[in-house]
């Protein structure tokens, strides 16, 4: 994988596509963040990307993100300076300036927003992220496993409100912040998990921006050549095609503030006569065939349009779509006991033990 050194305006289309792929069905359409980044880069120039190895140990790294319902952000667009306002509030509390921006979530809308913020703030962005994909809650980041605290955390809205939170642990941060996003109109911009370069080297997942860009480039190149990108993505990323078929049922319901549900996919071509069930909670979390798991969170389950290879979100998914279900092993950090406690099947209410996607599918 080629390491990305700067992100230019022209790179943003690929970044948004790669971000949609790693959204694993959730996280929102990266389109709005892409436009914001294109505009900010147009005004302030390309964003330098720092590899994790070249971070100064005492540099201050600050992740920024959107928190709340992506559907809201696609309707109530940001004023534009909310994230900077959150960043400045956090800097005021810490008594020092940030040296680099960081992307908390490599999938969905949050894959593109930090790039816009970095361009607007005139700061570099670190090549890495806290999830390697999208997850629904803010404590679900690798930093939680390495004792990096989400707080102090700053939240800002378009009206000029800026709040700073101090909570006892990262799960509490999630609970309080979630309530505030609702008061902010369903979504807000946040700056949190301030950390030093030394902490970041231990606690983050490396090379995520390079990965996003290269996934986007592969999808674009394969689409241009009229090929479905699944095969090349499998070969280049160590992923696998899990299933191919047509969506025949989508059952959605709201539980505990999340869009939960499941979709049934009836096999086509080589998968004819078989049926796969996808369970989701904003993101795809579990793929099962006849009650036997084919992929389990935190491993990545991505849905691609069968013809174009375009990533499909859980909200877009509808009866009749022809899709490829694509699986990708998660970062090894997620496969530890602590990682599985945060984002494994049990946390999401699926009473099954985690098994790595490679092991499950090697047996077949």
């Amino acid at each position, binding site marked *: 994988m080629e390491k990305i050194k700067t992100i230019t305006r022209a790179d943003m289309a690929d970044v948004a596509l790669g971000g949609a792929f790693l959204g694993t069905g959730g996280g929102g359409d990266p389109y*709005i963040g892409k*436009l914001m980044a294109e505009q900010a880069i147009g005004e302030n120039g390309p964003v330098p990307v720092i590899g994790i190895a070249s971070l100064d140990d005492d540099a201050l790294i600050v992740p920024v993100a959107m928190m709340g*319902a992506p559907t809201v952000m*696609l309707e109530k667009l940001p*004023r534009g300076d909310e994230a900077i306002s959150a960043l400045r509030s956090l800097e005021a509390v810490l008594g020092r300036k940030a040296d680099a921006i960081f992307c908390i979530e490599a999938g969905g809308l949050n894959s593109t927003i930090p790039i816009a913020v970095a361009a607007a703030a005139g700061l570099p962005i670190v090549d890495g992220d806290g999830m390697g994909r999208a997850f629904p809650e803010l404590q679900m980041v690798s930093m939680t496993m390495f004792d990096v605290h989400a707080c102090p955390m700053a939240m800002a809205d378009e009206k000029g409100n800026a709040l700073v939170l101090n909570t006892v642990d990262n799960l509490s941060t999630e609970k309080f912040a979630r309530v505030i996003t609702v008061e902010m109109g369903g979504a807000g911009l946040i700056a949190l998990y301030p950390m030093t370069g030394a902490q970041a080297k231990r606690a983050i997942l490396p090379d995520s921006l390079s990965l996003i860009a290269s996934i986007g480039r592969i999808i674009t190149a394969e689409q241009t050549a009229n090929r479905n990108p699944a095969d090349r993505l499998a070969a280049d990323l160590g992923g696998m095609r899990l299933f191919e078929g047509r969506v025949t049922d989508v059952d959605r319901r709201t539980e505990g503030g999340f869009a939960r549900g499941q979709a049934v996919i009836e096999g086509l071509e080589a998968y004819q006569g078989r049926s796969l069930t996808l369970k989701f909670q904003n993101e795809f979390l579990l793929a099962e065939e006849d009650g036997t798991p084919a992929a389990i969170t935190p491993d990545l389950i991505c849905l691609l349009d069968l013809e174009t290879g375009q990533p499909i979100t859980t909200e877009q998914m509808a009866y009749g779509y022809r899709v490829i279900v694509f699986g990708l092993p998660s970062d090894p950090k997620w496969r530890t006991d602590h990682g599985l406690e945060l984002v494994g099947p049990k946390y999401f209410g699926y009473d099954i033990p985690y098994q790595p996607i490679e092991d499950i599918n090697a047996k077949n």
Partner: protein
Amino acid sequence: MFRIGVDVGGTNTDAVVMQGDQILSGVKSPTTEDVMGGVVDAVERAITDAGIEKSGVTAVMIGTTHFTNAVVERRHIARTAAVRLCLPAAQCLPPMVDWPDDMCEAVGGHFWMAKGGNEFDGRKISALDMAEIDTIAAEIGEAGIDTIAITSVFSPVSDEMERAAMARLAERLPDASFTLSSEIGRLGILERENAAIMNASLRALSERTVDAFGRALEKVGVTCPYFITQNDGTLMNRDFVQSYPVLTFASGPTNSMRGAAFLSGKTEAIVVDVGGTTTDVGALVKGFPRPASTTVDVGGVRTNFRMPDVFAIGLGGGTIVSAEGEPLSVGPKSVGYRLTQEALIFGGKTLTTSDIAVGLGLADFGDTSALTGVSPDHMQAVKAHTDNMLLNAVERMRVSPDPIPVLAVGGGSILVPEQVGDLPVIRPEHFSVANAVGAAIGQISGEVDRIFSLESKSREEALNDARKEATDKAIAAGARPDSIELLDQEDVPLAYLPGNATRIRLKVVGDMNG
């Protein structure tokens, strides 16, 4: 009790006369520069062929690609004022931010952002400031713009601010016409605003065109009401289309698919519509075109209309074929409407797919003796190539392994073989005017797309409310109440929002009154 369906295409204007389910006549006539001439000729001939009295015609339904073409070609677009009610939110991405430069130039790129807009639950982002609206009115007046698109944040949840701003602007600018985003699009402000701005920019053209259709029918001597078809196979009356021309976008492929369904009696099928230059392939589900899953670009502008999922390939009756001895190639260039001058069988010098079809005995027109220089081997090779192009396109749109039929329609459908892969091909009667038939059978619809709170009511009650609202809309648009049925229903719970907020999209259709 007769209906007339008309399809105004880029090359031909087609017309059919129908009585109930019977097709009494179907004719093709070249489309004229002024549009009217072609309509007059086609309708007159269709009436004469059917042998009916003009006074017996109760409705005329017209499908047209005129407004799509205006956007694609950047012609007849009026300078438009885009007003967004959003501040302090949404400043970072102003109206038309992602438009192609030439389209932005065509509408003038004039926009204003003002205080206003709602939150997802109806709370105000900020109150409307009438002094600010008055200033905007003065600036729009000074710029000499008379068509205005108003978009407010979360207007699909509450359209109150769009209406209040319109009322105030109309007081100051009595001659202006207005497009409200809440009346056109769904959630997703950029896409909805794009549609509103394009709609506003097409209103003057729409008024001229709809008037021209009216005058054409008057000239023929047909005095009944007339309707224009929209992209979901349903109809709009003349006042409605004057206000909402964008809803005609992509109505052409919809009409040909609906017409093919009607003519063949099939409701699950792949439709292959072969024109002069391109072939559109789409899928029928329950007799309606399958909608596209992603956002659809119109002339480079992103919209979230419900559009039919169509795969187009560069193969038509006028497609140019490589000469014998050259490396085999088919298209995408076409002689288009000059087929009757340039094809070999019509005394021209260009080898086309129509020459091949005639040479192989699949069709009988033109002068076959002009084909003596083309060997049967070359013809077979070209035929194998075009068969393969069609097979790939059909497989792409196919939704299941079931052996559903392929419906071949359109003037160039002689190019479609008897079988595409394992699928049988049906060529319904009147196949060449399927799009005019699709227009003639258009239905009236009503649609709702809004966020409902399930705090105080059940999901079932919310769906019932939505169904009633859509039904009322359909009846107001001219549907017969007893014929209304649910076409499509979807509800998506919104993540993270309290009060069990759910987004319901729902559409009903009914037969036209009278």
